[in-house]
């Protein structure tokens, strides 16, 4: 309802009469183009990485795969800073190029935006595709091995059909994510040639204070992302590869030395691409941690507060929705979850702004609104975590509870919530970390007095205080991870299975 309300407010405020200017069209074109490029590159790179990870067993493999999940809660602004430290004008590669007498890399613009999107989405794409690989039952590999299939035959028999099923969905998901990219475009894009719709909304807001135009752009954004989210959902459904008994997969086709060296190189390259920027942040930021300005400390307090409230709101919304879906009363609820995917933070922020602007000074509400919008953003993910858990508990214990006469609140308190502790902790941790790292709606509302930590990092960057920015980024990253770890662990503490 909150999302719908915001959307309706936006739609009413939109000034359709004036139509779209050329710069608006440019923003639409750029948004679609960069999202398509980002999706293509992410998936194209993810396929060999996933294949290497699927075929190899090596010490640290589980850790690496777990790390692939980390960028999801990695604050975008931290990723951007890390990428600048490696690929920027004064970054490692440019310095190396300079030593060789070559000009430095130019990272701002389309390729910078795409680079950051690939950095942020390659891990997700890899994990999704790796999942596809792992869902090929071990029995199929065993049968293929018995028939003497080499790497090429494995590819034709098993891997290529799997990719035909999985890759389109992954492309659509990454495309949809990149459509609503704001922080990346804000920091690495900009200018008439590299402005996304989200960024255009922000500019219409902050610089021109043209609410009508912001609302119009928001409408376009909703239509675009709504279509992309629908396509992504449709495509990511598939009937899979038939069942197996989860025997451990052994690969007899990948034992030749060429395949080994190739897979090793691919894994090293991917790990380097993903880990070096983070290492760079830590190297340049650790020194500055001791002399962080007071504004950063205040912003940290704000951020923790926002993250905690946001996680609470997410749970308060997601738990009843998850139970409703699990009980089969979920058609509307699933639609609401989809809406959360389709609407972008800035669009919802614009909607709220339009609503509250006549009543109170919006800056007063900047932190509560940020917490609320962050919670709405985290909702689809929380639902994806909670719904299967709720389903399982109800399937397994529902009948037994009914025969014992347990229903309603006792069932909720005694069975459902305790049994779902692990998922609840995970969802809360994810939501808190996402909120902690979010640089979106806060930029619309905040004045110079108020800030969250990501906004403060962005401001330090804008003021070219790179060392302080890096230090604040280290703090931000640590806080996000710590929040996630704390809540996720808290949920699993003494929880069986």
């Amino acid at each position, binding site marked *: 309802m909150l999302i719908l309300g915001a959307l309706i407010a936006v739609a009413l405020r939109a000034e359709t009469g004036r139509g779209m200017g050329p710069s608006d069209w440019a923003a639409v074109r750029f948004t679609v183009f960069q999202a398509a490029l980002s999706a293509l590159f992410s998936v194209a790179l993810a396929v060999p990485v996933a294949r290497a990870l699927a075929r190899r067993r090596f010490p640290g493999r589980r850790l690496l795969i777990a790390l692939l999940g980390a960028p999801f809660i990695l604050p975008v602004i931290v990723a951007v800073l890390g990428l600048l430290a490696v690929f920027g004008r004064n970054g490692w590669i440019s310095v190396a190029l300079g030593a060789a007498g070559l000009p430095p890399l130019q990272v701002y613009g389309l390729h910078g935006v795409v680079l950051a999107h690939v950095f942020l989405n390659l891990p997700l794409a890899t994990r999704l595709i790796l999942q596809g690989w792992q869902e090929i039952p071990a029995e199929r590999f065993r049968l293929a091995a018995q028939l003497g299939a080499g790497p090429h035959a494995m590819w034709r028999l098993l891997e290529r059909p799997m990719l035909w099923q999985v890759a389109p969905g992954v492309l659509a998901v990454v495309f949809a994510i990149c459509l609503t990219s704001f922080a990346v475009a804000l920091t690495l894009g900009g200018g008439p040639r590299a402005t996304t719709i989200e960024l255009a909304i922000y500019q219409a807001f902050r610089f021109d204070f043209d609410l009508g135009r912001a609302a119009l752009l928001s409408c376009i954004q909703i239509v675009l992302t709504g279509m992309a989210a629908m396509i992504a959902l449709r495509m990511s459904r598939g009937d899979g590869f038939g069942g197996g*008994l989860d025997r451990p997969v052994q690969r007899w086709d990948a034992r030749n030395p060429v395949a080994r060296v190739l897979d090793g190189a691919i894994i090293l390259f991917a790990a380097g691409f993903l880990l070096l920027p983070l290492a760079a942040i830590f190297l340049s930021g650790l020194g500055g941690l001791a002399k962080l300005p007071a504004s950063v400390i205040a912003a940290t307090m704000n951020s923790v507060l926002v993250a905690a409230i946001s996680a609470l709101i997410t749970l308060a919304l997601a738990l009843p929705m998850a139970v409703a879906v699990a009980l089969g009363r979920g058609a509307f609820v699933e639609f609401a979850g989809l809406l959360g995917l389709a609407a972008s933070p800035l669009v919802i922020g614009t909607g709220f702004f339009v609503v509250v602007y006549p009543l109170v000074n919006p800056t007063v509400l900047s932190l509560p609104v940020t917490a609320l919008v962050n919670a709405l953003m985290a909702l689809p993910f929380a639902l994806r975590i909670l719904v299967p858990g709720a389903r399982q508990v109800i399937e397994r214990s529902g009948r037994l509870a009914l025969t014992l006469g347990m229903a309603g609140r006792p069932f909720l308190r005694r069975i459902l919530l305790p049994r779902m502790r692990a998922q609840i902790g995970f969802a809360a941790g994810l939501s808190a970390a996402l909120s902690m790292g979010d640089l979106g709606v806060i930029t619309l509302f905040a004045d110079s007095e108020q800030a969250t930590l990501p906004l403060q990092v962005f401001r330090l960057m804008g003021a070219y205080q790179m060392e302080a920015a890096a230090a604040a980024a280290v703090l931000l990253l640590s806080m996000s991870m710590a929040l996630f770890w704390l809540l996720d662990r808290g949920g699993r503490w003494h929880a069986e299975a």
Partner: protein
Amino acid sequence: MLRLEKLVIDNGGFTLSADFAIEAGRKVAIIGPSGAGKSTLIGGIAGFHPVVAGRLIWDGKDLTDRPPGARPLAMLFQDGNLFPHLTIAQNVGLGLNPNLRLDGMQWRQVETAIAHVGLQGMGARKPAALSGGQQSRAALARVLIQDRPLLLLDEPFAALGPALKNEMLDLVDRLASETGATVLMVSHDPQDARRIADEIVLVADGIAHAPQPAAPLLDDPPPALRAYLG
């Protein structure tokens, strides 16, 4: 002749030892209580479980370190014997070339094999469109076309009803007699053994015992077998 020379097979920490030989052309049933190591024995011979000691010899050739596809044997598993996304003809064709690059003559060979197991005209269907018995027949058609001297069966018909299972065992018996293949068949039903086996390997407590003639063994079982038969 298949020789298992002081063979020790490791299946995730469980080890099975075997030290005997099987004459070429025999049909051997492997029976024993569940968990005793029947599937481990056959998986070790097929190359799916590592051999940690001893040697596996077929016709004087050492198979111990060969990958599964390079051994002179065809195998049917308990489940998952067909690729669900390929047609029956393609599934059978894999027996000739795992890359499925077949010429016209080879495709005719595939058709013949499909007809031979009684599935005429069903080559274009996917496995899901076939009954359980027909799926078993399709898998047997591939075994037939693989034309390997050794056939390993790890209870592939366990999910079929008794009449259908007997039908499949008779088909295996007929195909093996036609090709002269040596058959090793895991079973937990002594009736299966009586139906087609010449010899029986009894597996109990991590040891596979040397094969003995089927009928006398079943008529007058030693203590270990009697405990299993009940």
